[in-house]
């Protein structure tokens, strides 16, 4: 009996001691770091995750008032869902990275977001829409140029090609095809030289339908691709679109083109040298620079030379940073300061050079050029040049569609039906437009109720 009492007392003393030590430690930590924490939820993985952490670290070192905490929340849809659930529970992050197809959804949730132009103005930062590359920022701005979210990682699709494979097929490795008309004879030569995969594309909806429309200056949807209102209708079943998909389907049948999946799964087949021509985001640069053991080049996306006005300019993909509502004014001040930090030419240049994502100010493009980066790494400026080919029109500013996540899936499904020979290109595109319009109407109904 006595011995248990002693044991209990000893345990209690130990417990109390630990508790004191902990609280002392806590107080110490608090004294050392009374910064305001700002949560930044993002979907960057691998090397890009490291770059994001470096950005947060750089900002945290440069001042002692705020502390950006960068947290990876999985894929883009997972990050968005996590932010929504947290916001409902009153614990939303300050900054959340949302992919471009989520833009319509975010815009429709006006009560949950804080527009970036408002944030910057309220905290005393001058905001001049003219000092940005409008082809990039326009995607995330209102029709009158007010920026709603901060364009963080924007890229545009370009064409990568295997110079060794071109040489082997008797083609000039410095003359990649400029038009779709030039494509076919080249693909035939590549196949004749033994290539099992002359051509493939990643992100088929983004590259072969969305950017295809912008480059040929034809509408993807009415109402300036949705910028002018929710009552927009899809238009990607025009004769030109049908012509293009028919061409691609023919190539697949002939073995001139290979289907490699909806996302970027097919990168592996370009890196391994199996595929000769590959269309992928400009942000794929890092992957190929590290992995490809052959000579390769970058070129602009091709166009049909008989279409008037082509090539216009390409549009972006990627993601932007949205600021969520219901936070303290003091915290918003820190977020504004962080965005200002991100926009500095120095940081923009670093981000552009290290990731292949586009710079958002013309100044940082010029600075990168002056540092000799493009000359040392030929082809890295292809994306910027393609974006700035011509001033954007209503067909090439970007896309602003509600329920766009599902619409992309619908397009993928219908395109796959073409590739597997189940549907004709016209039939598939008509169905995709009809199904997509139904999703747009549902979104419009929901938006009108507010």
């Amino acid at each position: 009996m006595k011995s248990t009492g002693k044991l209990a007392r000893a345990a209690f003393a130990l417990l109390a001691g630990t508790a004191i030590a902990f609280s002392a430690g806590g107080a110490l930590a608090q004294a050392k770091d009374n910064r305001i924490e700002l949560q930044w939820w993002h979907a960057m993985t691998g090397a890009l995750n490291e770059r994001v952490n470096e950005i947060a670290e750089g900002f945290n070192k440069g001042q002692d008032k705020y502390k950006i905490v960068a947290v990876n929340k999985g894929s883009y849809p997972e990050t968005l869902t996590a932010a929504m659930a947290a916001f409902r529970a009153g614990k939303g992050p300050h900054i959340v990275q949302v992919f471009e197809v989520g833009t319509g959804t975010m815009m429709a949730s006006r009560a949950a977001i804080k527009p970036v132009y408002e944030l910057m103005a309220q905290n005393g930062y001058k905001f001049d829409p003219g000092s940005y590359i409008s082809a990039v920022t326009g995607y995330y701005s209102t029709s009158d140029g007010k920026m709603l979210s901060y364009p963080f990682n924007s890229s545009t699709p370009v064409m990568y090609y295997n110079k060794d494979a071109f040489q082997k097929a008797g083609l000039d490795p410095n003359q990649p095809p400029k038009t779709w008309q030039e494509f076919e004879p080249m693909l035939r030569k590549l196949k004749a030289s033994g290539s099992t995969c002359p051509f493939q594309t990643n992100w088929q909806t983004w590259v072969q339908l969305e950017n295809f429309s912008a480059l040929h200056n034809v509408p993807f949807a009415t109402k300036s691709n949705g910028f002018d209102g929710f009552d927009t209708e899809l238009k990607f079943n025009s004769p030109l679109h049908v012509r293009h998909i028919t061409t691609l389907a023919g190539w697949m049948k002939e073995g001139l083109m290979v289907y490699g999946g909806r996302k970027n799964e097919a990168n592996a087949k370009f890196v391994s040298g199996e595929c000769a021509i590959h269309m992928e985001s400009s942000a794929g640069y890092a992957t190929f620079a590290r992995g490809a053991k052959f000579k390769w080049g970058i070129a602009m996306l091709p166009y049909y030379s008989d279409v008037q006005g082509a090539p216009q300019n390409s549009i972006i993909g990627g993601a932007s940073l949205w600021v969520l509502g219901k936070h303290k004014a003091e915290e918003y001040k820190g977020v504004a300061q962080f965005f200002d930090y991100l926009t500095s030419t120095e940081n923009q240049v670093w981000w552009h050079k290290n990731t292949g994502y586009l710079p958002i100010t013309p100044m940082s493009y010029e600075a990168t050029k002056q540092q000799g980066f493009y000359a040392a790494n030929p082809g890295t400026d292809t994306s910027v040049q393609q974006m700035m080919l011509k001033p954007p029109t209503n067909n090439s500013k970007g896309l602003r569609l509600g329920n766009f996540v599902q619409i992309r899936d619908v397009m993928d499904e219908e395109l796959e039906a073409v590739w597997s020979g189940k549907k004709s290109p016209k039939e598939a595109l008509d169905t995709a437009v009809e199904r997509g319009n139904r999703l747009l109407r549902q979104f419009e109904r929901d938006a009108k109720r507010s």
Partner: protein
Amino acid sequence: MEKRVVFQNRYLPYLLIAPQIAITIVFFFWPASQAVVQSVLREDAFGTRSYFVGMENFLALFEDEYYLNSFKITALFSTLVTTIGLSLSLLLAVTADRLVRGTTAYKTLLIWPYAVAPAVAGALWGFVFLPGPGIFAWLLLQAGVDWNFHLNGNQAMFVVVVAATWKQISYNFLFFLAGLQSIPKSLIEAAAIDGAGPIRRFWSVVFPLLSPTLFFLVVVNVVYAFFETFGVIHSLTRGGPAKSTEILVYKVWYDGFEAQDLGGSAAQSVILMAIVIGLTVIQFRYIERKVHY
């Protein structure tokens, strides 16, 4: 003879089942009621505003041919998984029951797949059937099959059924084996003396006596195919190609989490709930009557 236990205290039985009731309320009734409420609302993704819309979410579902298609897919998928899974595991159990030597080794090996998580099972079979490096895919290609389950809906269904069935065979096997071992040897021997061959003995004596086990397994397998195969489908096909493997549960998840259409997703949950209640009633009312205990 009455075998009922009689409690002296009126409140004791309620007290004893209280923990179970509490768990059911918190983890079933409460979320289910939330789904019912959500199914008649439309709200924006962040939940800042919501509107009562009556039956609109349900009506929209029945106008969607892909939702109706998902019913067909679910019916086909669960029938295949249940029948193939049960037949194969019954065959395995009967053979394992007859073994004289090495029974433990066989049993252990057959039980292993049950320890594999659905997503992992999906990834494993995905690799085996991967067009290109996958071994089965390679064999099929050699046999002249144009194999690519990322493009061909029937092939995708095949792969998903294989993975889902494989994972459930262990569980079925265990129950069948236990059922077989509880059948009195004297009955089988009596039938043998009466001149019944092995096949006749199986169908006339063993199979009827196994029917309680079989009934139980049918219920469990249907529920498994309906709800627990999400991981397999998500890792193998993500419901594709062109929604050809999108079972009802997968669509609930997709519409709710990927598409942020909470009202539509909740409406589907409510319908699914009604289906499960209906199925359970049918199973216990009609099928159970034919089962000999």
